[in-house]
């Protein structure tokens, strides 16, 4: 007993002060949104970055570099393919959007989460979510789970993951939605009383990610459920997920 108190003292107080204080520090090699430093320097008709992208997230149109953050794996394959070394990845972690089209970059960042009145009334002070992994690789799941640890302490925002869909205000879905999970996902959704939200976390859930085009998976959650919030990343940093949830509930970025 004394020992556990001693260890407790040594562990100290560890909950981040964010969002009132500074955000937890991102690693110096963190890879955020890719962009082209100077499309004017691109060799004529060069499409190497577009071709190198494993998820076809890049579109070169009218000499501009556009990237779909909903499909992007933030893997830097585009940067590695650029013969002129023009592609940079910034340190942006605020990636969420409530509208799929708003995930295209460049964009006015962070994309304002459209706080529709319905979401706001459901989720403003208390948001209970049921998590469903539908083909997720356990990375998005793990970094969602981490938000409930004492360092992030999601509970202080009134947000909680619950065991039963009957107790939930919505679903947080990870994974591209495998054929084998479709039915279970729909049944879980049907068990959530309305009004209800859907949050898609990670490239797979947003767009199918690296599995897009597979016959064994769908191309993300929006193929079968109305999505209220998209959180990109492979997997998203916990800070990205938290930022999305706080925007959705109007706690930041109002």
């Amino acid at each position, binding site marked *: 007993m004394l*020992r556990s108190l001693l260890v407790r003292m040594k*562990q100290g107080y560890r909950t981040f002060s964010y969002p009132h204080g500074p955000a937890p520090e991102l690693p110096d090699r963190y890879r955020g949104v890719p962009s082209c430093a100077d499309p004017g320097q691109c060799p004529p008709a060069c499409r190497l970055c577009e071709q190198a*992208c494993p998820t076809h997230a890049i579109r070169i149109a009218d000499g501009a570099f556009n990237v779909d953050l909903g499909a992007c794996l933030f893997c830097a394959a585009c940067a590695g393919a650029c013969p002129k070394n023009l592609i940079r990845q910034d340190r942006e972690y605020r990636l969420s959007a409530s509208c799929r089209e708003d995930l295209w970059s460049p964009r006015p960042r962070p994309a304002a989460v459209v706080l529709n009145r319905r979401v706001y009334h459901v989720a403003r002070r208390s948001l209970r979510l049921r998590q469903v992994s539908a083909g997720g690789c356990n990375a998005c799941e793990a970094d969602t789970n*981490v938000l409930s640890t*004492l360092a992030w302490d999601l509970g202080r925002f009134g947000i909680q*993951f619950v065991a039963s869909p009957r107790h939930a205000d919505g679903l947080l879905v990870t994974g591209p939605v495998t054929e*084998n999970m479709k039915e279970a996902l729909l049944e879980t959704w049907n068990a959530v009383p309305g009004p209800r939200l859907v949050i898609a976390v990670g490239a797979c859930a947003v767009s199918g990610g690296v599995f897009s085009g597979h016959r064994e998976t769908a191309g993300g959650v929006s193929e079968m459920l109305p999505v209220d919030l998209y959180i990109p990343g492979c997997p998203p*940093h916990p800070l990205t997920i938290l930022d999305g949830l706080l925007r959705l509930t109007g706690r930041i970025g109002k």
Partner: protein
Amino acid sequence: MNTVSAPLQHPGVIAIADIPVVSVEKMRETLASETEAGNRIGGLFGILDEKEKPRLLLVMMADRTGSFHVILSDPGEAYPAFTPDFPQLHLFERQLHEDFGIVPGGHPWLKPVRYTGSADRPGGGNFYTVQGEEVHQVAVGPVHAGIIEPGHFRFNCRGEEVLHLEIALGYQHRGIQGALVGGPDKRTIHYMETAAGDTTIGHSTAYAGVCEALAGIETPARGAEIRAVALELERMANHTGDLGALAGDVGYLPTSSFCGRLRGDVLNLTALICGNRFGRGLILPGGVAWNIEESRADTLKTRLKTAGREIADAVGLIWRTPSVLARFEGCGPVPRETAEDLGLVGPAARASGLSGDTRHSHPAGAYKKDRPALVTAEAGDVAARASVRRDELVHSEEFILRLLENLSAGEILRPVSPLKRNCLAIGAAEGWRGEILHVALTDNAGRFSNYRIVDPSFKNWTGLAMALRKQEISDFPLCNKSFNLSYCGHDL
């Protein structure tokens, strides 16, 4: 004629033409003689030859010599199943039947494994049923309480006592093995990183080994050392998280709370190396993408020592709290013989007294020179699985510090030459759950014609089912967490 191939070293490569092709009966004899000689079964796979005809490929692992033996056979449409004699092949033969319709006659339970393109879904069909007065079934999943992947558990119980547990998976099937055919291409490394996302380093290391063997190149020493640092960090993060979760499952909140944060601290060390907490983008065929410069090594060492100290404190509380130990001890035991028969791997096997550890038996890269000490326990229960993980944490930390102290000079990444044609290659890594095995075959253009992934979970899920026998159903979460197996690594 030899009944097995010449030994392949690890990572190893052999021309497909040099692999002996034997009758199914001869393969059965080989299985018997090899296991008699103390060798282990790596896997049994259905592969397509150049004429799209399915063949059996058996991979044996010789732990004493650190080598692999392979052998091929043409099973035809049906053959007498190996499973009755070698229970650990039961899932491999089910997979064979699912993929190619080959019937292993006499297989006791020939259900699909992954439900690829099938009208049926996991969780459907028949379940093994125990009959008798007061016997009832409990169905759990695929969607569970908590943030966890999907799977279906069907318990046959008498009162609270579990008589039999059948685990039905396949919900996470994303078609990775099929999508790897024709590669390597720009998606291949991402399939490896997401085969089991919590084992990104483990699977991408095994894949890199396959590619390097096929390209005939050595991993640069410094690159191999950085891989080993990342692999041990992955082990530390997951062991820490799981020990915390085990404490949480018996309602002991101090360790549970502390470990939840500490796991993140270790993941952040991986992010310090490559920018991503799970090691995405770090491992490449030919080496690693990110260097650990001297100043970074110093930061890593300092932060790792702090985390290690705090983890030891937090985890140590478990063994100082009799009420926690009372719940762990005797819960979910897997006897040594069962572990051996089922071919369990990793900490689950070592907790039952087996000594399998790929870092020791089949070392590659940095593990050839030095490795963390081997940890085993005897009891095979939750307490044993927890103690193996506790001790592995300490040894992994010491090993990482030794590696960072003595990083070799030189390059971290080497260009990968075109892959050899018509060859078979094997790469392995000891992930935090146990032995990861990758087997690739190339066609006459040097592209993958077959790629097989064996996540340790594929071998260990049945161990969990056996651990539950004669246990209380309320102990299932605790037993489950003591294995903490991958759903997506199994379903691929």
